[in-house]
């Protein structure tokens, strides 16, 4: 069954579930949407704007088909990182108002509590859409978009794309090298040194594989002066415009809410 899923998916993230609407948007637009959405949220550190943005996002992603279970499975690093960032703010954020507890440099105050909440929610409001919008991005499609829509140099984009394919081989290399260290009698101790020899060997293999790949690409006319054509057309359309509008709207509503409630707190203030 997994083989089936892989075969229909171009081999990338076969287990990632499909999302309504989002899947039809060009990867480059998704990248732009994340920037449109999150840049304004980086300008203020209040809790309200982030909470509004996060709330709207969660509703929209739920509509697109993100279940709570999927959310946890795909974004758990962010879900863990957010409260950790919050706790550090709680203890070391700028003290203000009543102090509840202190130990050496750590002080919990009204101000630090508010900051902690604001930071936790903000990390989520910025991290979750980035992770969820890129749940199912095919690197080939992204490269097509970057070269054809964003007009990045094809040489650079395709070189990077071809290189991503080598990553899987390096994982295999690393595993085999780990086993071989045990077989060679040097697996008992000296982990640091062992990893250093493996890293060196991996580097050699990477360079060698990379140069072979470059030769193979060159043999197929890559890097010639002929203007390149594209077998796959990267398209943008109405859905792309819609995603950008939605992203801008969420950002605008969030900032407006903070301004209206008087909690807006620019980072430079």
């Amino acid at each position, binding site marked *: 069954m*997994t*083989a089936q899923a*892989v*075969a*229909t*998916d*171009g*081999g*990338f993230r076969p287990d990632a579930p499909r999302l309504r609407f989002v899947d039809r948007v060009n990867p480059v637009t998704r990248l732009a949407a994340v920037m449109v959405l999150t840049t304004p949220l980086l300008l203020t550190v209040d809790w309200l704007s982030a909470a509004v943005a996060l709330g709207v996002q969660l509703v929209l992603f739920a509509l697109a088909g993100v279940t709570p279970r999927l959310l946890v499975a795909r974004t758990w690093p962010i879900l863990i990182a957010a409260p950790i960032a919050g706790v550090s703010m709680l203890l070391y954020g700028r003290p203000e108002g009543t102090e509840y507890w202190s130990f050496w440099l750590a002080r919990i105050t009204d101000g630090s509590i508010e900051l902690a909440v604001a930071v936790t929610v903000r990390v989520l409001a910025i991290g979750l859409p980035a992770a969820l919008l890129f749940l199912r991005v*095919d*690197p*080939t499609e992204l490269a097509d978009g970057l070269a054809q829509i964003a007009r990045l140099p094809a040489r650079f984009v395709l070189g990077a*794309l*071809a290189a991503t*394919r080598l990553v*899987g*081989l390096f994982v*295999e*290399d690393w*595993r*085999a*090298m780990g*086993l*071989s*260290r*045990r*077989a*060679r*009698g*040097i*697996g*008992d101790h000296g982990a640091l040194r062992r990893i250093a*020899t493996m890293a060196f*060997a991996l580097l*050699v*293999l990477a360079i060698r*594989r990379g140069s*072979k*790949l470059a*030769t*193979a*690409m*060159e*043999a*197929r*006319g*890559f*890097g*010639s002066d*002929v*203007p*390149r*054509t*594209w*077998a*796959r*057309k990267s398209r943008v359309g109405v859905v792309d415009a819609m995603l950008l509008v939605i992203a801008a709207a969420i950002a605008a509503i969030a900032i407006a809410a903070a301004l209206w409630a008087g909690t807006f707190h620019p980072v430079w203030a």
Partner: protein
Amino acid sequence: MSESAPAGRPVRVEARGWGWRHAGRLRWALDGVDLIIERGERILLLGPSGSGKSTLLHALAGVVGDDDEGEQRGQLLLDGAPAGAARGRAGLVLQDPDSQVILARVGDDVAFGCENLGVPRDEIWRRVGESLDAVGLDLPLGHPTSMLSGGQKQRLSLAGALAMRPGLLLLDEPTANLDPAGVGEVRNAVARVLERTGATFVVVEHRVDVWVDLVDRVVVLGGDGSVLADGPPEEVLERQRETLLAAGVWVPGVPLPIETVEDRDAGVGAGGAPHSGHEPILAGEQLAIGRRRDAVVRAGLDVVLPEARSTVLVGPNGAGKSTLALTLGGLLAPLAGRVVASDSLASGLGAAPIRWRSRDLLTRIGTVFQEPEHQFVASTVRGEVAVAPRALGLPASEIATRADEVLARLRLDRLAGANPFTLSGGEQRRLSVAAVLVARPRVVILDEPTFGQDRVTWLELVQLLRDLVDDGVTLLSVTHDAAYRDVLGDHRLELAASVDPAPVPTPGGRS
């Protein structure tokens, strides 16, 4: 199928006093090459390693590099124009299946060359279908390239070259890294492509028998970088036999000067029970194997390695042969069941090799990996063979003695100061074996030890292993090599195709 010739006009190749010198080298890799290849001619290019065969192919394909990478003299012309001036006139397929897959999906990968040549989109997809058909890859365009076997990857690469409509097809050891099934696939695909396109064809390969029926001319390059012989296959192979054999070429019809298991059994006398008297030294009981707990490759395996015998482990790709070997070798933990070492092998330790310390493994079970570079840890050849004796805590004098002995035995003494990563394929293979033998393990496990080896290295290696077994060492070899099995298949373990048909994506699709 489609009758439109899926290729450009066959190319005429002309080399006039052509030479190439790699940047920073004094010696010309090739020099004074005079060679004319007529349109549609099919050539097998032979010669010792270092004779510049690959360089010549790369130069014909126009990928030998610019002035930074070397200098050339004389002329190398395709249809009268300098090679490399017209991209796409020559299509090149290289040796390593993994390093020439460019994109993630089959269709995209074949389309890549056409895109670079500026072919219009509709035309690209027409050519993609045509080329996949010509090489017999009957897969959806969206099929992931990472799931292909080695032979399929090579055919994919061939299709990618073909889609550019080359008039000259160049293959650089296209089957050296493939198992016999893959070799057959690629050879048949090439035959079909040549029949359809009539393209001029040059192939470099040690395994002459694969290509000899397909070519109409053999060119032999000498060690000095010039053309040594040139003519019809039978005639050149006959006349240059000794030179070619010395260069490691597998000349067809020349028997291997080494005793097979059959010969030996015949010598012992019919009716003898050759397997009696060999106690199991290592056994797997109800083994479930896999690299990760959630990826069981096989389950319920019972296997036995008889002491002081050579066992060959055979079976199709993806059957779990390498995984089984690593599990028996105490490198991977069994996912169920157990691996049991005999009391004499364990000598004081517990029966399960996976629980032994790394240095305790050294004198008991040595493992030679399929990819020599995966096991190199030192910066010199000498340092490499000293790793194991040093880990055993042997005195310096003993380390030196053992290192000298094993280096001499595997003809590596001249290379003692070289970096292992700079050695040739055959030298790397010998070093990987030397580094294991130096610890004098009682069991040696080898994963595809003869993969891609030339005839000279092959003979040395197989003779050495045979001698080891006769001295009482127990051998387990994962192998696809029929000749190897003939010499070292005292005992045979066969893993049938895995019950779960989900292919395991490994580099090169080898298992």
